[in-house]
């Protein structure tokens, strides 16, 4: 620990204290990593290894990619991943544009109808629509079986909007005022001055949106009938959590072969990997981006 500079006034940590701290942190880290590890290893195990282990595999014995071959063979998982990727990219882009615009508009008190608009947005926290009316609106607009049905109804998160707005409000006003005096339009100010200063919050809010879209499940249950347009979570659920067919003999006779454990785990892995890949790059912005929004919002 030589590279760490401890302030002079702080006492030297006790051995017991450090050991306790280490134990707790190791425990917390393991609680997250062990399930991930077991799932990954099982997905890469052969049928024999799984039978020998009696189920989930903790200690790897060779690498067997057959589970991945199976799930990518039919094209179903590939398609679902493509659907989810499309929804995520499209949705995040739409959401960010709408949110940033609205947040900027609402960050300037004194503009026309400002109080009403703020109230309008915040009230969504308290009154929510019923499921069937929402369903009717979505189908009424012809969005059924369209990927837009997974994007538009949830495109604006007022929580995220409040975070971005608070960040905008924390920017020095003089900067914007001087730009206005120079005759710059509001869009220009937003694009040239505000956004470059707000990379952190945009990155964080963008990640929030992206994760929301990647995890979409329930809207797909309602709005997507076409099996080729199922997003990955919907397929994941059908692989893992789906139950057994009712025991009517006619039905059971035609029931599909249950997916093997390795196949189930492989589906979990492909669902997690994109998140695990993207988020460390944005993680360093978390503290700065969220702090301003959450504490000052």
């Amino acid at each position, binding site marked *: 620990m030589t590279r760490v500079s401890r302030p002079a006034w702080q006492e030297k940590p006790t051995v017991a204290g450090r050991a306790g701290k280490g134990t707790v942190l190791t425990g917390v880290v393991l609680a997250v990593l062990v399930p991930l590890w077991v799932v990954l290893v099982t997905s890469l195990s052969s049928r024999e290894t799984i039978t020998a282990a009696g189920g989930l595999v903790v200690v790897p014995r060779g690498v067997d990619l057959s589970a991945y071959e199976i799930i990518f063979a039919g094209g179903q998982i590939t398609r679902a991943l493509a659907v989810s990727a499309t929804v995520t990219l499209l949705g995040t882009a739409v959401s960010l544009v709408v949110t940033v615009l609205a947040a900027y508009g609402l960050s300037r008190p004194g503009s026309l109808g400002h109080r009403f608009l703020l109230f309008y947005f915040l009230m969504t926290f308290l009154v929510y629509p019923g499921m069937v009316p929402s369903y009717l609106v979505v189908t009424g607009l012809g969005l059924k079986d369209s990927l837009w049905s997974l994007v538009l109804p949830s495109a604006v998160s007022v929580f995220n909007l409040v975070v971005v707005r608070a960040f905008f409000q924390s920017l020095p006003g003089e900067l914007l005022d001087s730009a206005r005096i120079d005759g710059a339009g509001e869009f220009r100010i937003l694009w040239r001055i505000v956004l470059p200063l707000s990379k952190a919050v945009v990155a964080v809010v963008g990640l929030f949106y992206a994760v929301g879209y990647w995890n979409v499940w329930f809207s797909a249950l309602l709005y997507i009938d076409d099996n080729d347009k199922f997003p990955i979570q919907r397929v994941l659920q059908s692989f893992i959590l789906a*139950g057994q067919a009712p*025991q009517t003999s*006619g039905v059971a006779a*035609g*029931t599909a072969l249950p997916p093997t454990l390795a196949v189930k785990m492989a589906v979990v892995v492909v669902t997690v990997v994109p998140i695990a890949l993207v988020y460390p790059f944005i993680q360093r912005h978390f503290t700065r981006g969220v702090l301003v929004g959450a504490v000052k919002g």
Partner: protein
Amino acid sequence: MTSRRTLLTIAAIAGGGLLTGCGEKSTRGGATQQLDKLSALIPEARDVNLGIPPPDVIGTRPVADGYTRFPASLTDAISEKPGRGGAAIRGITPVWGPAPPAGRNNSYLVAVNDELGVPVEFSVQDGTSYADKIGALLGARDVPDLLCVPQWEVSKLARFGDAVNALFEDLTPHLRGAEVAPYPMLATFPAGAWRNSCWNEKLMAVPNPTDGPFPWVMFYRRDLFTKLGVKPPATIDELYRAGKEITKPRQGVWAFSDVFAMIQMYFKSPGAKDGWRRRPDGTPEFKYETPEFKAAAEFMAKLYREGLVHPDIVASRGADMKQLFQSGKLLITQDGMGAWQPMQAEQQNVTPGFDVQPLPLFPATGGDPLAWGDDEPISYTFLKKGLPKERVEEILRVINWCSAPFGTTEFQLREFGVEGKHHTRTATGPVKTDLGFKEIANQYFFISGRRPVIQPTPQTPKYVPEMLGYSNQTVKYLEKDPWDGLKLEMPARYKSGMTPFQDKFTDLVRGRRPFSDLDAIVKEWRAAGGDEARELMGRALADAGR
């Protein structure tokens, strides 16, 4: 709440005895329909002579006939393509497990759709959340051309009669009496299945007839019984003694899983319409109110108390009973008939000598045994309301094609796909390939019906005779249902009370509640919709003149 709903029930029944679902009355209270009055609505039964060999084992109705081997050659039942090149037919069906690929990505669907001459596009939905999905579709009045509604979901969907009336096509003019002629396969379905497909005195759906009436069977591991030298019990005392003999906690073996439904049957607790019967004075009574149910509950409680039930089962309702039974950790269990063959086929590869058998039904109290059962269809197929006449006919021809019976090329393709691709032919019958398992998920099965037969399976050649032997023996004791032929839509409050009260009796039987609470629970049940339901059941009988 009670008053309003009761009033509605009475109003609905008093107003002509039958609810003529005009869709404008509130139907929270329930309704009844007399099915025998509906005989004029249903198709004229007629057999088609397809030259299919006669069944090897004859079942006593409602038990289906059985085949012990696949016919050497298949009959081509339908020469004309049902499709007239119409637009794709959209259908929604359930699946349990991974959804199969859809549309052009599924070579099985492509093959069958080619034969049909009009593509059926399936949306296959998760079976466990199927009621949710249909609920949303119905509530938003957004139904596909073909909708499969399993029979067990119908009882969960409130105002279903109204929904049927508002959303689905009346099939009476297409199928009643001799009108069924263009659809010969549909004319072979049992009349009971058709009568069950009537709502609001109209024929509204094509039924998928059931192939067996029994909801529960008591299964035991014959191989392990033989090994232990225990005789399969034939009386309630022998059952108890066998339980004592088998249970050896040290070796991790217990006798029973939760077998309460079967115990109720042994003690002849009523089972019609979920547990109703008529008192000698003619008024209906529910099983909770009968001494037979009480005796059964006491016996089951004794099994729990003396530790003869596997502790994993005691701990919760979610324990994997099948797993424990298959691994020999418990030797006697209750399950649906459909569990038998797949379990035997799978486990005999894992455990040599694995032999699961049904325990012949016996009475606990003398006289003849009593078997619960009904002949309600597995599922119903509805057509969207407002389709043009030609389109309805095209779709019905598609359903007719999909309903071709065992022994036809159509059935073979529907059930097993293309030879060499989805199944391989063996001397004893077709065996599905991996691709077959992946792509075939009962899609067409769930938009059609068939004259039910028990099919042979190459892996378990003894299954058909054994299964039909048990069924034919047991069907003799099938309980007489006083409401047979009456279709009841039970009051909403009674429906929503079903599970909570079941849970209360579960607590009682498992010793989590004192047995002395029984009378109080029954009283509570009567107040919470029980008496309301009794009134409906009584009126239904009176109106039917029984």
